[in-house]
C-alpha cells in the first residue's frame, strides 16, 4: 500500500502537518485490554451499582420492554446504518421511520410527526423556537411552573441567545395545576406560545381544553407537552379545546427505551399540517420510484442545515434513529390495547401507592386534582433523610422536590408504573412507616447516622 502511494512509511503521510504538532502522544489513556478483561471490568462496575426498587419517575419511567424490541433494534442492519441519505439503500430505516411518524401522529392526534429530536427537554426548546419562527411577531413564551423544572432550564439555555423570553406562570396551591382564570394576568402581553403539560410535572392533569382555547383566543400557539403512555388514556393534544394544540412535543423514552442513566432517549415532535415547513429535524415522506413503485425518502430537506446553512430551521443533524426504532417496534408489539393496559396499570398502581403511603401517619397528599401515574406527597420529615434511609433498604423512594419547589415544603414526587407489584408497594410502605415514625420519636440526626436500623 505504501508503495502504491509512493511513500516509505506511514509517518510520511502526516508530513503536511506542522512538525511541532505531531508530538501529540497520549499519556492518560491506559493500555488496551482484551474483550474478556474489559468485560470483567464492566461487570464489576455494574455489580457495584446494584439494583433498586424504583419509585422515581420525574420524566423517565420504568416500563416493561418486550424482549423482541432490542433483539431487533440491535440487528447490525439497523444498528450500524446511518442517516438514510441513499434512499434506495435505506428503505428499511426509512419505512420504519414513516411507520413511526404515522403512529406518533395518531397517538398525539396531530397531522404530522418528524423522525425525532434528541430528547424531551431539547425537543421542547425546538418547539419554542418553532413557535417563535411561525408567529413572526412575538418572542415571549408562557411557561407554567408545572413544566418539568429541568426542561425549563434546558429551554432557557438553548433559546436565550435568540432574545426569547420565558415567562413563568405560578401553579395553584390546591390543585397543583395552571389555573385557567389566572391567565388573564398575561393578556395583551404579546406571547408567541403557551406551553401546556399533560400530565404536568406533579403528575396532575391540567385543564387542557380551557388553556388551549385561551391561547388561541390571544393569538398564540398552544404547545402540548405530553407523556406518550398517558395518551392511551388521555385526550390527544390534537383534540384539545376547539381547535387542538398546534405543536405537540414530549419525551419518547417510556415507549421502549430503558432508563439507562438518562439516555439515549428521544424527543417526539408533531404539529398541524400548516406548520410542517417550520419543523426542525428529519422528516420522511412516501413517494414513488421512476417505475411508480411506492418508496420512502427524506423530504423537506430545504429546511435543514446541510442545505440552508445559516438559514436552517435548526442546527439539528442526527435524530435518535435507533431509539425511535425501538419505540416503533414497542408500539407495534403492544398495539392500542396493550398500550392502554400499560397506562391503566400505571395509573392504578400509582393510586394504590398513594393510598397506601398516605395511610401512614405523617404522610399526606399535596394536591387534590386527578393524576395520571405520579403524585406529590408531603412528609412529616426531611425528604432527603427519608430517601437516604429508604435507599439503605434498596428502595428509591421518589424525586425530592425541595430544590425546585421549596414552597411545597417537604414534598416528594412518586411514581409506580405497571412494573411495580402490590408487594413492592407494601415494602415501600413498610419501610417508610418505620422511617417517618422513628423520625418523629428520635432526634433529627438519628436517621442519618444509622439508616439501617
Amino acid at each position, binding site marked *: 500500500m505504501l508503495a502504491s502511494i509512493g511513500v516509505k512509511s506511514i509517518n510520511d*503521510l502526516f*508530513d503536511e502537518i506542522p512538525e511541532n*504538532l505531531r508530538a501529540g502522544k*497520549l499519556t*492518560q*489513556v*491506559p493500555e*488496551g485490554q482484551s474483550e474478556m478483561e474489559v468485560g470483567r471490568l*464492566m461487570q464489576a*462496575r455494574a455489580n457495584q451499582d*446494584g*439494583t433498586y426498587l424504583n419509585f*422515581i419517575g420525574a420524566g423517565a419511567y*420504568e416500563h416493561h420492554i418486550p424482549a*423482541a424490541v432490542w433483539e431487533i433494534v440491535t440487528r*447490525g442492519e439497523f444498528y450500524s446504518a446511518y*442517516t*438514510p441519505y*441513499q434512499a434506495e*439503500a435505506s*428503505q*428499511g*430505516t426509512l419505512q420504519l421511520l414513516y411507520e413511526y*411518524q404515522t403512529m406518533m401522529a395518531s397517538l398525539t392526534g396531530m397531522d*404530522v*410527526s418528524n423522525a*425525532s429530536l434528541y430528547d424531551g*427537554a*431539547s425537543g421542547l426548546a425546538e418547539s419554542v423556537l418553532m413557535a417563535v419562527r411561525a408567529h413572526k411577531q412575538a418572542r415571549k413564551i408562557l411557561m407554567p411552573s408545572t413544566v418539568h423544572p429541568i426542561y425549563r432550564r434546558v429551554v432557557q*439555555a438553548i433559546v436565550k441567545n435568540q432574545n426569547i423570553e420565558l415567562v413563568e406562570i405560578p401553579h395553584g396551591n390546591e390543585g397543583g395545576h395552571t389555573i385557567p382564570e389566572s391567565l388573564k394576568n398575561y393578556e395583551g402581553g404579546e406571547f408567541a406560545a403557551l406551553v401546556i403539560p399533560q400530565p404536568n410535572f406533579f403528575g396532575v*392533569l391540567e385543564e387542557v*381544553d380551557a388553556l388551549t382555547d385561551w391561547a388561541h383566543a390571544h393569538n398564540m400557539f398552544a404547545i402540548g407537552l405530553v407523556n406518550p403512555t398517558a395518551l392511551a388514556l388521555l385526550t390527544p393534544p390534537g383534540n384539545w379545546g376547539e381547535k387542538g394544540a398546534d405543536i405537540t412535543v414530549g419525551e419518547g423514552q417510556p415507549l421502549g427505551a430503558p*432508563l439507562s*442513566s438518562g*439516555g*439515549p432517549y428521544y424527543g417526539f415532535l408533531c404539529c398541524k399540517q400548516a406548520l410542517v415547513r417550520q419543523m426542525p429535524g428529519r422528516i*420522511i*415522506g412516501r413517494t*414513488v420510484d*421512476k417505475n411508480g413503485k411506492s418508496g420512502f*425518502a427524506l*423530504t423537506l430537506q*430545504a429546511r435543514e442545515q446541510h442545505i*440552508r446553512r*445559516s438559514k436552517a430551521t435548526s*442546527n439539528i*443533524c442526527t435524530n*435518535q434513529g*435507533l431509539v425511535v*426504532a425501538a419505540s416503533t417496534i414497542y408500539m*407495534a*408489539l*403492544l*398495539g*392500542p390495547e396493550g398500550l392502554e*393496559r400499560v397506562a*391503566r396499570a400505571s395509573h392504578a398502581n400509582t393510586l394504590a401507592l398513594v393510598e397506601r403511603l398516605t395511610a401512614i401517619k405523617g404522610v399526606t397528599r399535596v394536591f387534590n386534582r*386527578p393524576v395520571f401515574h405520579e403524585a406529590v406527597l408531603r412528609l412529616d420529615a426531611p425528604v432527603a433523610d427519608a430517601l437516604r434511609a429508604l435507599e439503605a433498604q434498596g428502595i*428509591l423512594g421518589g*424525586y425530592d422536590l425541595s430544590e425546585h419547589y421549596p414552597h411545597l415544603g417537604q414534598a416528594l414526587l412518586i411514581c409506580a408504573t405497571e412494573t411495580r407489584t402490590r408487594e413492592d408497594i407494601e415494602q415501600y410502605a413498610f419501610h417508610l412507616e418505620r422511617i417517618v415514625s422513628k423520625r418523629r420519636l428520635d432526634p433529627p440526626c438519628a436517621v442519618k447516622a444509622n439508616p439501617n436500623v
Partner: protein
Amino acid sequence: MLIFEHSQTGRGNPSQAPLSKAEVKDIPEKFRRKQKPLLPEISEMQAVRHYTRLSQKNFSIDTHFYPLGSCTMKYNPRACNKLAMLPNLLGRHPYAPESTGQGFLACMYELQEMLKDVTGMKAVSLTPLAGAQGEFAGVAMIRAYHESRGDQGRTEILVPDAAHGTNPATAVMCGYTVREIPTDANGDVDIESLKAAVGPQTAGLMLTNPSTLGVFERKIHEISKIVHEAGGLLYYDGANLNAILGRVKPGDMGFDVIHMNLHKTFSTPHGGGGPGAGPVAANSRLEPFLPVPIVGQVQDKYLWETEKTRPQSIGRLSANMGNAGVLLRAYVYARLLGREGMHRVAEFSTLNANYIMAELARRGFILAFPKRRATHEFVLTFKQLKEETGVSAMDVAKRLLDKGFHAPTTYFPLLVPECFLIEPTETEAKEELDRFIAAMDEILKEAHSSAEMVKGAPHTLPVKRLDDVRAARELDLAWKRTG
C-alpha cells in the same frame, strides 16, 4: 407492505402488557381519549418478521463497505453494545442518587479523563446529545465568555466556506451573524481574507481540521494567531478527529473549545441516524462555561458537578446527563483500544484513504486537490465526466449501490462541483478497498460505454431512483386508513 396493512382488529400480544385491564379510577371523562390510536394489531411473530425484513433492505457497516465521507463509518465492536447493555446499567434511573451509581460514574469520569488527553484540553463535559449540540455548547460558551468580560460588541462568527452546514446554523442559534471566509486553491483557509475579516466584532472562528476538503489546514498556527490577536476564540469542529486521533491534539493547535462526535471517532453506532454523543472540551479560559452536569471526584467518590458548583456554566442541554448508553459504548471502545490502539486509528485510516486516492488517480479519476495528501478522507470531482458523458456524481453513487457498496458522501463539500468525499476508515481490510477500487473503475468504463445504464442506476435494489420532488410537493408523511 406497511405494518398497518398486517393489522387485524382484535389481534395482539396479551403477554407483553399487563394481563388485566385495570380500572381507571381517577380520570374524569372530560380528560379521556375517545378514539383509539392507529397502532397495529398484530402478533409478535408478525412484528418480528416485518421489522427483520425491513432491516434487510438497509445497507449497513455490518453488511457493506460504507465509505461515507465525514461520517466515519468504522466497525462498531459488538462488545461495546453488549457491555453497555448490562442489566444494572440499563436499569439505573437518571435521578437515582450518586451513591447508587458509583460504577457508572467511574466509567464516565474515566471517559472524561481520556477525552481530555485526546483533545489536549483542560476539562470535558459529556452532556451534549449529538455533534450539533456539542457545537451549540461550544459557541454558546464563546458567547458566555465574551459576555462575562463585558465585551458586548462581538457579534460575528467566522466560518470557512468549506464548513459543515451545522457550523453556520449553530452560530445563528447562538445569536451570531455569520461571515464566510474563502478557501484557497489548495484547500487552505485564505489568510488574507481572514486578516481582512477579523476585528472587534469577531467572537470567534469555527474550524474543522482536517477540513471537510480532506486536507490538513497547514496554516493553523497563523490562523490561531490572527483570531486570538483580534480578541476572538477558536472553536474546533471535531467531526474529523479520526484523522489525527493519538497523533495531534487540537489543544496544541491553539483551539479554545472543541466538540467530538463519539459516534464517529469512538465507534458508537450510527443507528440509522442517531443517537450520537457530542462531548465538549475546553481550555482553562472556557472551562467555567462548560455545560452541566459534569462528573467530579472528591477523594474516592464520584459526584455530579452542577450549576451550584459551576455558576458560570451555559446550563443544561438535556433533561439528564447526556446519552449515557452511547457514552458507555465509547468508554468500552476506548478501553479495548487503549493508547496504542488509538495511535493506530489515525495511521490506518490515513493509510487507507491515501491508498484508495492513489489507486483511483492512477485509473483516471480526478482529485479535487491533487497536490495534497489525503487525511482520513479525500475529494474526487466528476465535473469532467459529467461534461463528457452526462454521468453525474449522483449517477456514479447510485451505480455503486448496485455493486454492493454504500456510496460516499456526494455533493459535499459544496465548494467542489460533482464531488465525492470518500472515507474508508481504519477498519477496512485492503481486499475490501481493492474491491471498491475495482468497482469504481468498472463504473468509469460504464460511464463511457453505457452512460444511460449508469444514469438509470440503481437496478438491483428494492426500489429504483425515487421521486424526491414529488415527495416534497405532495407531502405524504403518515399512512391513513382507507375504507
